[in-house]
């Protein structure tokens, strides 16, 4: 059974069609990259998968692990193992990072029938994961993303993914705004989570990230549809030729 199967997905935002029949199938263990020009609907796809409000699904379906994903609320999807690494992680003043991580982890653990971790075990668990992402205690004790640089925010997203251990991770423009050092740290974090049971969907405009996190399949999203699919070589080709051949209609 596929981990994720998107069939003929049509989505409108404020009555404007954005996705016009997307088909995509991800098997467990696979990393797929979705590339495409700005405005092609990449972020819409990530938000629809995670359940954000404001998107009208006019046709099609999304089957995740055998269940109808569109029937679930965002928090239910998260507890079922769907994770979105945000392009622009939200700053939440007043909520301490560690407390947030613990609340999130325990919500998922309870759902999986596991015990809640106590404060000590949790701290040990987080520190281990945080270390390889170069996140120190001081950063964990700050309010969620408040005053973080772009790179710090993205590392924190990957830390959350490492802690929550999702089955399907959607990484929305995780490479944007990163310098080369940060890109390497983040890529290492993503590669560490490659697993035979986990699927990943990398959404990116540039090929850069794919030098570090090598995808099994690459798709081009243009005008709300998958216009072409291929392997790594397709990403390379796009890097050289750009998106011109995909004949983007800009309204």
């Amino acid at each position, binding site marked *: 059974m596929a981990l994720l199967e998107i069939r003929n997905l049509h989505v409108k935002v404020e009555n404007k069609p954005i996705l016009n029949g997307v088909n995509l199938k991800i098997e467990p263990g696979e990393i797929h990259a979705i590339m495409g020009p700005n405005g092609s609907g990449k972020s819409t796809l990530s938000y629809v998968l995670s359940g954000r409000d404001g998107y009208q699904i006019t046709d099609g379906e999304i089957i995740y692990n055998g269940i109808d994903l569109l029937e679930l609320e965002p928090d239910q999807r998260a507890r079922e193992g769907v994770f979105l690494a945000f392009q622009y992680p*939200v700053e*939440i003043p007043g909520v301490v990072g560690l407390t947030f991580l613990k609340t999130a982890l325990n919500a998922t653990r309870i759902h999986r029938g596991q015990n809640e971790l106590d404060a000590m075990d949790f701290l040990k668990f987080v520190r281990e994961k945080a270390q390889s992402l170069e996140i120190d205690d001081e950063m964990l004790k700050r309010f969620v993303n408040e005053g973080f640089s772009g790179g710090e925010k993205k590392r924190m997203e990957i830390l959350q993914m490492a802690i929550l251990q999702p089955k399907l991770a959607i990484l929305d423009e995780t490479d944007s705004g990163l310098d080369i050092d940060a890109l390497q740290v983040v890529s290492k974090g993503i590669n560490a989570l490659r697993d035979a049971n986990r699927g990943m969907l990398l959404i990116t405009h540039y090929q850069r990230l794919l030098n570090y996190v090598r995808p099994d399949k690459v798709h081009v999203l243009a005008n709300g549809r998958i216009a072409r699919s291929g392997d790594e070589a397709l990403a390379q080709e796009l890097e050289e030729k750009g998106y011109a051949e995909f004949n983007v209609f800009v309204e």
Partner: protein
Amino acid sequence: MPDGAGRSFTFLEQAAIADQIDTGSQPHWLRELKESGASIFKKRGLPNRSDEYWRHTLLNQLVEIEFQLSNESPRVGQKQLSQVALAGLSSYRIVLVNGCVRKDLSSIGDLPKGVLIAGFNDVMSLLPNRLEKQLGHYIDLKNMPMAALNTAFLKEGVIIFVDKDITVDKPIELISITVPNKNPTMSQPRFLIDLGENSRATLIESHIGNTEIPYFNNVVSEIIIGEGAGLDHYKFQDEGTAAVHISTTALRLHKQSLYGGFILQSGGLIGRVEASAVLDGSDSDCRFDGVYLGRDNQLLDTTTSIKHVATSCKSRQVFKGVLNGNSHGVFQGKTHVSIGAQKTDGYQLSRALLLSRDAEISTKPELEIYADDVKCSHGATSGDLDADSLFYLQSRGLSPDVARRVLVEAFLNEALAEIKLNEVYEGFRSHIRGWLNKNINQTVAE
């Protein structure tokens, strides 16, 4: 049903009856003070829509229900008391039940030298001259009708005196409990707190009533902080669900003195906490902070006024409100800078979160500045929880209710951070969490 004027008359009738019982024993000055309160209240009556600072807070319950002074001394056990006290706090405790001091429930123990914590009547027989000099001298009865009403009844209360240079080693806990009677109960307690030069104290004042039966608690406090002295004052208003709680506090700050006030208001059908400070000596520092939590049909009013008279004083106010159901919040904050009060530093912030479509907030910040070398600012906002933050938390597996509670608590943290005493911080935080668990649980209710 009597109208407002009719009810004002029955209040005064009761005051007169109570007064007749005392006639023999009370000194002339006290009699005059009470009469001045009665005559002001008679003239003004209960506050109504035409009173500028009462426009949003109508006291219909006081017209509809006939509240009576409590004559009984109901049973209250130590167990009941321990439910309302702050956990793990060692304090000098004085307890009032239905507005009357109860020595049997109080535990004042061995007070340090130079500290007096006692009931009004004991102090009347001990130090009448000092009471004569202070009582009623710090409060502007003409502009405070409810304080005038309290003054007409003046008979019960708590007096706290701290002498020069004394630091009170433990917090003073003032607990007022209301236990319902056959008839709707009314209490009119009076507090006077006078801190001598360079003294220090912490006061925790709680008003509790674990009942759905209506009652009326009309509290007046006068607080004088001597030169170089400091008072931290925590006030917890958690009256019964049908109660009317009105409290009026008048503060006088002398040179280089400090007052840190924090108000947590969540009880009563109508709750109004009014505090006004006069910064009389230079370099004094006055803070009013607080949190109010409204649900159902509650009306919670916070009204403050800070008058900068002397130079180089600081005032700071941070209030955060959370309103659910059909509740209505009122925040009226005034900062007045007199002509000679140069180098004043005044800051005021009021923020309200409206958790339901039917909740409402009325905010009235006022700056009145007559000096030219001052730094004053105020800000007021109201709104719903941030949708992006809610989605972010939900996308990490937090249910909508948990996400909302996390965000509301985060919103309140800025005000709670002003609490210095750890036991109070923990106690207030756990009260707030309990409130959030009870009031933000739509998923369960659906």
